[in-house]
């Protein structure tokens, strides 16, 4: 009762853009899960089907999302802050380059040969290093070579993980 009065007095407005976005994010995620698990059978109580839990979880996610949206209109909270694309691009890009190079890859017409750790290692460090505001090119190159050598020795030889080193050059 009293809650409603306060709300009326102040009007409905977004008090926390972060919470609002979080709520919408939960609703989106729930919707996505619902669509993706739509065709899975729910089963019976005695024999739960593969769709029972994903769908139930999605419904609860949607409910929580709606609650978050409502609370963002009612309680004061943080606003959304900016998003740094530089880090996302270089850091995550470096990881993807590693994934593409380590064993080689075929995506449609693009063909990447098996380059192995000898190439993927330095690339990860060089590319991700660009994400820092204060990177120094010379230092980064030296570090990339040293670090990759250390990793090769550590993982390939000390821990003997079956990781390709340079199949195109050394055959391993």
């Amino acid at each position: 009762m009293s809650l409603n009065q306060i709300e009326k007095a102040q009007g409905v407005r977004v008090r926390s853009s972060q919470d609002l976005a979080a709520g919408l994010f939960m609703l989106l995620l729930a919707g996505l899960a619902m669509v993706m698990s739509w065709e899975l059978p729910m089963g019976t109580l005695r024999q739960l089907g593969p769709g029972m839990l994903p769908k139930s979880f999605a419904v609860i996610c949607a409910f929580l999302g709606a609650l978050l949206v409502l609370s963002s209109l009612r309680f004061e909270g943080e606003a959304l802050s900016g998003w740094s694309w530089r880090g996302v691009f270089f850091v995550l890009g470096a990881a993807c380059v590693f994934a593409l190079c380590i064993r080689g890859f075929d995506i449609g017409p693009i063909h990447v040969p098996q380059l192995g750790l000898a190439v993927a290692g330095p690339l990860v460090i060089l590319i991700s290093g660009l994400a820092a505001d204060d990177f120094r090119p010379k230092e980064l190159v030296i570090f990339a070579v040293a670090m990759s050598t250390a990793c090769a020795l550590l993982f390939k030889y000390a821990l003997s993980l079956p990781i390709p080193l340079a199949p195109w050059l050394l055959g391993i």
Partner: protein
Amino acid sequence: MDMFSNLALGFGVALSLQNLALCFAGCLVGTLIGVLPGVGPIATIAILLPITFGLDPTGALIMLAGIYYGAQYGGSTTAILVNIPGEATSVVTTLDGHQMAKQGRAGVALGTAAIGSFFAGCVATLFIAALGAPLTKLALLFGPAEYFSLMVMGLCFAVVLARGSILKAFCMIMVGLLLSTVGTDLETGQERMTLGFAPLADGIDFAVLAMGVFGFAEVLRNLENPEARDVVKTKIGRLLPDWNDIKQSVAPVLRGTFIGGILGILPGNGAVLGPFASYTLEKKIAKDPSRFGKGAIEGVAGPESANNAGAQTAFIPLLTLGIPPNAVMALMVGAMTIHGIIPGPQVITKNPDLFWGMIASMWIGNLMLLIINLPLVGVWVKLLQVPYRLMFPSILIFCCIGIYSVNNQPVDVAFTAMFGLFGYLLIKLGFEPAPMLLGFVLGKLMEEKLRQALIISRGSFMTFVERPISAGLLVVAVVILVVALLPSINKKRDEVFTE
């Protein structure tokens, strides 16, 4: 008493020069792979299996066990220093451990973790020696229904992990549960939410999710605000805990050891719950719960002890019943069978040397780990002084190699990058990823146990209430939830009224 003569036999075996050397080698390798993010004990033990062919079975198992609990020690180092939980059991350590590191108390956090783990290891060793055999009955009391209720209780713990909004913590648990259902359905083989993408057929790997939302996302967050990361490197502070720190940690260590030890015995990886349960307890009984998540030493001491105690008591079902409670223990079964010892209820009587030798070696191994780790604290803390522009590419390359080596699948690395983006988005939206990880870990087990229990009970939900242990666990779950929710509901009301 029998126990002492048995332990004497065990120490006689474990203190031979060869076994001491193997134990040390195991602990050293374990610490190393624990510190490296991504490379876990499973991969390492598998790779080292053929090397143990030439050894006698006791020596081989002593070394492999050393790798396992050594990795638990090392894993907390990475959790504290760079906020990456190498394994599900060190997720909680990131909460307060990394905060302590940011406040320049990395050395204290590492030292507390090492000493707490050592203590827990000692107690757990005695525990196994004294009560190993009778305690196996506990594992047999837990059927699917009890296990499901235990998982529900575990999820209720997660609410307490929240820093800030409880509603958002709930959201994260649900997202974790939702992510855990991705992959091939165990019973019907149908693919769920995989979009027909083959690498997703077995679901999302824990390492992929954890490295993504903790490791990569943390790097992105740090790149954004240079001030936050500089705090870590400017202040070094004390290297070891002082008397005050130790006084604060004694009780949490004791409680953590007890909780972790009990949960470690349960089948189906009950050990993962130990650190969460310990954290929940410490936060609930603390005089000032708001310190948690901001570098409370109890939040490191308790869970780290629980984690190590659980890692050790997990050997009980393996050694006495021959039933491996988790993936690493399944691998130990492999190691034992490779040496012609088939684990089962008869190992104690048939191979007393092996059984008691291994138990004694655990205590010795824990001592060695303390000796290896304490001097290393200084080295680890120095690592924080490496400029961040060089540190984060190193974290990245270790993560990439580590994730690749989990399944030898390059696409896992790309997935981790994707989860890095997802984790960054979560940070921006004000979500904490720790409860999500717990939801994810428990989700798979929970669904499996729920479905098993319902098939066995022929579709009756009453089975969860009719069975006393299950009912008891559910009551605890409800109590935790009410206790956690009440203050926050009151607080929100207050906020509304003061507005």
